[in-house]
């Protein structure tokens, strides 16, 4: 507990220092000093950006406020604070299930999402790491061909390969309707993750590996004991981005796992039903569904944004 408190205080101290530094830069850096028409333009744009940000935040605030109202109050008091504050909507949201939701509650959907997105992330990040390391650091026959084909597959848009993929999953691999099938689709090692890790490994110093080789370590030991710990930063960042992507994925679980809906699939069933029953319960469901992602984002916002940016620039 004490350790958590220390980490928390350390984090906030760092945050406060960053903010102070940003303020100082804005006020004293010659590059960002503005006057006259430029200053007016920046004030105008600040207002525009603020309006835009409010358009993002206001609906969430409105939903949060209404999630604590009884259904009877929502119809009469949509814009005001809850008069009869209740947590019942959250309790109902956790337990609600019927035929339209495939008899699955939000907790079961959450568990399925954790399983598929979690294992999918682990597998795909691992395969990407293995492939990227070998292609970046080892000279072998066909290395350039592999790299060129991966780039080609990422650049050239293929429209509608879904029908063929479905046929393959059903008739060839027989993985249709299974959790393993979903994870198998996610598990490819060649994708955007591969490119990010490839560029990291390409710039990685070979000195440690040479030293380990002199000491008699084989390639597997070097990879697991030296390379993976050295690549911990980018691997964690890619894992978080991948986890969010798989957490929100609709198509794969909707097609290949219709009987066991994940959160992204099941929420649609829940919303369809709840819109006819109780809006506040639907709002509570929304809050429950986005909370894990928001916590993850709050904890790793800097890592996520920096690495998303890098990924985009490489495209």
């Amino acid at each position, binding site marked *: 507990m004490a350790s958590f408190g220390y980490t928390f205080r350390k984090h906030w101290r760092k945050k406060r220092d960053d*903010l102070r530094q*940003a303020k100082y830069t804005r006020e004293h*850096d010659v*590059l*960002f000093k503005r006057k006259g028409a*430029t200053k007016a*333009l*920046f004030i105008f744009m*600040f207002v525009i*950006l603020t309006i*835009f940000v409010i358009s*993002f935040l*206001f*609906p*969430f605030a409105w939903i949060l406020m209404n999630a604590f109202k009884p259904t009877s109050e929502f119809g009469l008091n949509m*814009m005001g604070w809850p008069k009869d504050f209740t947590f019942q909507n959250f309790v109902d949201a956790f337990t609600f299930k019927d035929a339209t939701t495939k008899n699955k509650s939000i907790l079961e959907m959450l568990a399925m999402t954790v399983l598929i997105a979690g294992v999918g992330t682990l597998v795909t990040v691992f395969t*990407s790491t*293995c*492939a990227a390391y*070998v292609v970046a650091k*080892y000279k*072998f026959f066909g290395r350039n061909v*592999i790299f060129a*084909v991966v780039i080609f*597959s990422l650049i*050239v*848009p*293929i*429209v*509608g*390969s*879904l*029908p*063929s993929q479905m*046929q*393959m999953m059903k008739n060839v*691999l027989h993985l249709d309707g299974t959790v393993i099938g979903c994870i*198998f*689709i996610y598990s490819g090692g060649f994708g955007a993750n591969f490119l990010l890790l490839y560029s990291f490994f390409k710039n990685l110093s070979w000195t440690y590996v040479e030293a380990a080789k002199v000491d008699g370590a*084989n*390639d*597997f030991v070097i*990879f697991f004991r030296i390379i993976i710990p050295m690549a911990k930063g980018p691997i964690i960042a890619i894992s978080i981005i991948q986890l969010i992507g798989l957490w*929100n994925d*609709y198509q794969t679980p909707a*097609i290949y796992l219709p009987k066991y809906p994940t*959160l*992204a699939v099941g*929420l*649609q069933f829940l919303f369809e039903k709840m819109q006819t029953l109780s809006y506040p319960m639907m709002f509570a469901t929304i809050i429950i*569904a*986005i909370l894990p*992602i928001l916590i993850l984002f709050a904890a790793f*916002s800097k890592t*996520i*944004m*920096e690495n998303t940016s890098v990924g*985009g*620039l490489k*495209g």
Partner: protein
Amino acid sequence: MTRIVEQSNTTRRPRRKRRFLKASTIFVIVMLAYSVLHFLLMWVGVNFNSILLSFKSYNRNGTYSWLTGARFFENFELIFTNIGKNVDNYQSMLFSSLAFFVVSCFVTLPISLFFSYFIFKKILASGFFKVIFFLPSIIPLIILTTIYSITVGSNGPVGQLLNAMGIESANLFLTHTSSSWMIWIFCVWAGIGYDVILLTAGMSRIPRDILESCKMDGVPSFWEFIRIVIPLTWSTVTTLFIFGMMSVFTVFLQPWYLAPKVNTTWTIGTNIYFASKGGRALNAPAALGLFYSIIGAPIIVGTRALLNKFFGEVSY
């Protein structure tokens, strides 16, 4: 005795070299095996099968048979017939899909560029703006669309405001024209954030020296934006433009989530998704996908090459 051993050693050594692979070769094979197999199966195999499927017909017993002779291109002929006669809203599907190119490339991208410039120039609360702009990228699409439709719908605060202004908010997602507008507005609203993140990251790589010399020369913000910032972030702009072009084929859930009752707003992606979802007669959607890949791929690759020629590659 020693000689014999030496002799036998010298004769054995080359054999061992031939018989066994080097340890590092085994390592490379083990590390790449899964990814290569997966790629061969799920990219090469799937796309090859997609081509084969589009030259087959679906039988009532659930099997597929090859189209031969005059019927060889039947699946593709059907696409042209459907577009010509507007069967299954093929014409509106084309229009709806192409509209996303305009929305992404000529509305979302310019607005994002403009916003990014001010965030890059450290406008007040720029860090906060960046974080908020990123939020739509991490929230599931079903939640974003639901929140948007409820807020704008008759029960929501914006809907009530619209009602007060004389606009029937209850009908916004019920007619083709209003639904299309609402979907496009949503795509701009939710899409700006991701573009802003990528663009500000691209802009942050611009060397400080260049910006300082602009400041010393008294270059106004507008010209700094047009002549310095855009050319130096052109690779990111090109990437986002290509993403925008690809949205013609990739956007499929937004129209369905927002206007499920107005299927004239559905895109190529939505149609392929629903045609495939039943798992039957996959030859028609496969042909549709192949048809648009043949048209779309060279256009997108060509546009990328063309855009790259606008400004020379600058390394800084």
